[in-house]
């Protein structure tokens, strides 16, 4: 981390993230991220075969993962021991029928996400609450969701 703070180029590199998703047929896709891959599917209720989480579940998990890392980062910075940590998330889509083209009401994105932290730590509850507040405030995924991110649509038709 010291290297990142001392090296602007390195920090700029870490500002950019990439993923590629390839259609596998049906409602399934495979994501390629650096040297990792994972499947994205839909549950049977949404015409998938339920072999993997769906995209909005990945969004929740991404937020949970981000908050987990962030909490440990902030706790470590404050010299606070964490024995166990879990984040439980629940998101409510504004109106899923809009995604399916069955309604014009509302939008198909999350309206609200609840992120509950369970933590075992000898630190006092006030300190834990402060670290949790700071974690949510500085979370990259949290900020992506809470602010309007500009999505640039591009297309390339391949023969």
């Amino acid at each position, binding site marked *: 981390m010291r290297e990142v703070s001392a090296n602007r180029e390195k920090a700029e590199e870490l500002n950019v993230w990439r993923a590629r998703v390839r259609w596998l047929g049906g409602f399934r896709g495979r994501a390629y991220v650096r040297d990792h891959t994972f499947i994205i599917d839909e549950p049977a209720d949404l015409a998938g075969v339920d072999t993997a989480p769906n995209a909005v579940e990945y969004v929740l998990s991404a937020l949970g993962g981000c908050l987990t890392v962030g909490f440990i980062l902030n706790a470590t910075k404050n010299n606070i021991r964490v024995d*166990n*940590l*879990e984040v*439980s998330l*629940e998101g409510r889509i504004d109106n899923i029928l809009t995604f399916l083209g069955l309604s014009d009401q509302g939008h198909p994105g999350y309206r609200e996400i609840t992120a509950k932290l*369970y933590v*075992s730590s000898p630190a006092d509850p006030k300190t834990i609450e402060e670290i949790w507040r700071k974690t949510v405030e500085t979370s990259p995924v949290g900020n992506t969701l809470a602010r309007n991110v500009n999505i640039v649509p591009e297309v390339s038709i391949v023969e």
Partner: protein
Amino acid sequence: MTKLFPTTVVGSMPRPAWLLTELKRKNRGEISYEEFSSIADEAVLLAVKYQEDAGIDILTDGEQRRDNFYSFVADKLEGIKLMTVAEVMDYVEDKSRYEQMLRNLDVPAFAIKSPVAVGPIRRKRPIALDELLFLRKHTRHEIKIPLPGPYMLTRASWIDPVSRNAYWDREELAKEYVRLLREEIIQLRDNGASFIQLDEPTLTEIVYGEASRQTFMCAAIFSKIDPKKELNFATELINKTVKGITGVKLGVHVCRGNWSRREESLLKGDYGPLIPYFQEMKVDQLVLEFATQRAGDLSVFRDVSDTRELGLGVVNPRTSEVEREDQIISKVEEAIRYFDPSRIYLNPDCGFGTFAESPVNTATTAYQKLEAMVRAAAKLRTKYGAA
């Protein structure tokens, strides 16, 4: 016991805060079971004192040495490992049910531990004989020893595929528990226990535990079960465990969960579907909750009354208000319609601290509830016969 309406407890009393600190140290491996147990001696003396002062006839040690009523076997048996739900979830297929339960109970996966069979099960220490021997030194009262029942243990600790390392199926594992529990019961009897209670709270889950209401005591079998087959299996295990054992009172305790004070989070439904199986169980006493309205009406015993003793739950361990004597008396009089007074024992619905870290009441309220029960029993004795 010759006196009418003997009073007893189901098992646990709230643990003092200092004992919980030591329990955590033991669980982290900082102190041995023996070191912890010797510290717990002091807590047992407190639990005994509360019960004696309240006037309870048949005492337990308040389960002060146990982290809960069944997981403690991990300290007593080789081949059992306490695994967190987080660890168990790595193995089971129906992860979404676990997730549903975690949400329902509002707990993290790292906080709930279950004793899982990971190897051949052998007795490392007696399961409860140490508890009995200590109690015998410090009280002249009759002693009840609660033990997790064979079905409860089998159901909780069978996780496919982890348990298959040692046992091909849960029936094989169950045989082992039956053998171990029989040995223990005989030793407890020979060393002076007067009442042994097998805790089988998950019997109600078989009947009333739809997915969202299930608890982690069920381990990994969930909806795959056929309730009738499962209840027959449980009954068979209980009967094999107690077969031919005489000279000690044997009971089975059934309730609808005791992990929360939120009554709506606990199971609901009367004993009706369990009655045919109760009839088959070769035990002397059924220790049943009835103070909570969720347990339904005593009239379920209409056609089968008086075939067993009834350990009647007359105080709710989860509420702050202490039951009035007249409430307790009227509950007992309801039971007298179906049971001879000589067959009725009075007890709380369940323990006051089933799970060490989350007791459902304070020691003070628990004591007051026991006192109320004792006062009501005295009045009932005057009304229904000589003490």
